[in-house]
């Protein structure tokens, strides 16, 4: 029960507008947090400090539970250079230096709604990083287009891979657990006590586990991976999509929620929860310029 699809079967998105609004608000809150913390980052701030800043900012605004605790990666850790074990994802004492790229990644749960976002930035000008961010925009369009075509998730994953290769980048979301490019999120029941293990909220994990169990019986998976268990059409619900590009020690990603419904109308069948996000605005400005 902990995690249900945001959009129940057979309904149109309009019926759940209030629910989507809830998700949209927490996603905005998370992006506000990312922008506020990014503005405070300066030379010498460590990953641990950046992670703590995100946690405190969100706790101060009523967040009590997490899908996962905030992460922060600086420098070549944005491209997961030399990552072998999952513990390396956790923030370290690496200090930020001028010109270094950074990624803030957080997944707060607020009033029962989950967000999972990734914010890429850079301390000072870095033309290479700008190029990565611009190229990420193509992936955002590709994912939405192919989900609307109801292509198998595994195929979409491979198409994203191919686009990355064409652009000259390495796929770094392969480093995430199960190599996922996305995973399902949903509502979490609010409790007074919300423990977490290894940085992941137990209530949200329970939701993911029960989805995985249902999916296993019905032939789908809440994890969008390159493996056979993802060889099925997009499943209605909310997907946190996180393509992650790496290029020789510089990494960049975005992460935001994609709404998938079972509507026949392509426009309604899949859409990004919110188009007013920093990386989307940035792309629009670039196109206008």
């Amino acid at each position, binding site marked *: 029960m902990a995690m249900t699809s945001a959009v129940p079967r057979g309904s149109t998105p309009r019926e759940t507008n209030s629910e989507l609004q809830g998700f949209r608000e927490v996603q905005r809150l998370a992006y506000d947090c990312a922008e506020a913390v990014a503005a405070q980052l300066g030379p010498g701030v460590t990953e641990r400090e950046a992670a703590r800043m995100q946690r405190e900012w969100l706790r101060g605004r009523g967040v009590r539970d997490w899908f996962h605790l905030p992460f922060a990666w600086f420098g070549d850790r944005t491209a997961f250079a030399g990552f072998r074990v999952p513990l390396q994802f956790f923030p370290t004492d690496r200090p930020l230096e001028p010109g270094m790229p950074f990624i803030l990644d957080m997944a707060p749960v607020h009033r029962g709604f989950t967000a999972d976002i990734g914010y890429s930035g850079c301390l000072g000008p870095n033309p*290479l990083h700008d190029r990565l961010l611009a190229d990420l925009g193509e992936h955002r369009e590709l994912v939405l287009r192919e989900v609307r075509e109801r292509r198998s998730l595994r195929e979409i994953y491979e198409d994203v891979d191919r686009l990355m290769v064409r*652009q000259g980048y390495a796929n770094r979301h*392969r480093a995430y657990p199960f190599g996922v490019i996305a995973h399902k999120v949903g509502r979490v029941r609010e409790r007074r006590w919300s423990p977490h293990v290894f940085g992941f909220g137990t209530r949200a994990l329970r939701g993911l586990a029960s989805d995985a169990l249902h999916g296993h019986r019905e032939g789908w998976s809440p994890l969008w991976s390159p493996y056979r268990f993802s060889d099925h059409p997009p499943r209605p619900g909310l997907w946190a999509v996180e393509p992650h590009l790496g290029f020789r020690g510089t990494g960049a990603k975005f992460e935001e929620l994609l709404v998938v419904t079972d509507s026949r109308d392509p426009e309604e069948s899949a859409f990004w929860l919110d188009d007013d996000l920093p990386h989307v605005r940035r792309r629009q400005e670039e196109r206008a310029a």
Partner: protein
Amino acid sequence: MSEHTGNGSGPEGARERRIRTGGIELCVAELGDASLPTVVLVHGYPDSKEVWSEVAERLSDRFHVVLYDVRGCGRSTAPKPLRGGFTLEKLTDDFLAVADAVSPDAPVHLVGHDWGSVQAWEFATVARTEGRIASFTSISGPSLDHLALWFRKRAARPTPRRMAQLLGQGARSWYVYLLHTPGLPEAAWRGPLGRQWPKMLARAEKLPVSGYPTASLPADAAHGAWLYRDNILARLRRPRTDAYAHVPVQLITPTGDAYLSERLYDDLEQWAPGLVRRNLAAKHWVPRTRPDQVAAWIAEFATAQQEGARPRESAPAKPYARWFAGRLVLVTGAASGIGRATAFAFAEAGARVVAVDRDPEGAARTADMARLIGAPEAWGECTDVSDEQAMEKLAAKVAAEHGVVDVLVNNAGIGVAGSFMDTTAEDWRKTLDVNLWGVIHGCRLFGKQMAERGQGGHIVNTASAAAFQPSRGLPAYSTSKAAVLMLSECLRAELAGQGIGVSAICPGIVNTPITGATHFAGASEEEQRRRRTKAGRAYGRRNYPPEKVAEAVLRAVVRNQAVVPVTPEAHGLRFMSRFAPWAQRALARIEPPL
């Protein structure tokens, strides 16, 4: 005394003048517009200013180039008496006199080779030259003070490694001991040694046969012995401990130098903050054997100081920057996979990159990204390597627009699978055209340019682990790659004498888009697609990144390796091919699981 103009080795069109200082007369030659920034080139032992003639000519379009014969050498007069006339203090007086005469208002860019560099270290570290030097490029000549402290540091705490370094340099310095014997060196130089020296240089140091050394050699060498006698012992006994460079320093190290160990410069950053290092695979006399690259590095460094900007990569120096900064690298098949990763790795080291591919968009994209990560210049070229005429056109264009290629990477290749009986004649032709003829064209055209220039270079050919592992599934591909491997070995033998290295890279299973374009002989369209996807996924699961192969390519160039297996399976197969070929034959019989 020699008449240096007219013997073919001196710089053409040099203006000469004589400068009196400290009781002697220095012969100074100038090239180029005197209003341009001044570069002063100081020669070594046993040389005269003509050692610089090739470099000076290449610099004279952008700089006011000044060369002078050090006291006692060439057409400068020798001090009387000789003993005590060659101290570093007096040599500093000479330099200041020249600098004041040729560039009274602006500081000069100083370049020294061998003893010229030893002197120049003194110029660059004493207080009285402050404001007269804009930059210093040191080639094959350490500061005697740094040298003394280097010896002391190693002798004070002699770990095995330090002892080896100490003894290594001690052995390389055999001629220094000889030069301290009285009378003997003079007699040898004025006698048989002076006559044999040009031939010895040509043989041992691979100096191109030209008018160098000049006729003044016996006198230069005999007088120059006093450089050693007046300074070495004095400085080794009482080195200055404040010999910090007050100007930006660039260090060019020939790695094949028979007289100076590379290790001498290990601690140099402590004396010259912001030191820029450049390495050349060459012997001691680089101003004669590698004038293009030496002139390019001098010009780049001087220009950067002139513009007041720090050199590009000075912040965190990339490990291969000292080898490849500013060098011209051409990579075929550079729109994807190993070729693209290799182009990026060279770009990151500061090389100028020509990315060649059939796919114009991919090549342009590679060039684009290469510029973003540190290539000073990068170009994308659309050429099919199997097309002889197109390759000839490319070679002519690259030579005309960018110069002679320093490193050539023949990487373009296609995958072809399927049993021998299924492989059609057309399949064979296509495979050999790209995988073998592409390499042949590249080596023939660009290798020829390299050999004709006579200043070294390197060719890397991408072979494959399939070159030494037979298989029933890849007969055409394996055959083409085995041919590339043997071609590389033969060419390596042929070009070794000209300072051009040839390496064959045998990557193994690497996650590249080659599987997506592989032709499966004898399979229907549908079956082709299925097998490509399957092979792609298998390679994806193996997930060996092409970046590691690129790293191996750069390492192979630096170390001049002949055959380089990259992935563990490639190493394993190479080992088996030597010690257990029967096992390889058994492996070859297994039907591929696609």
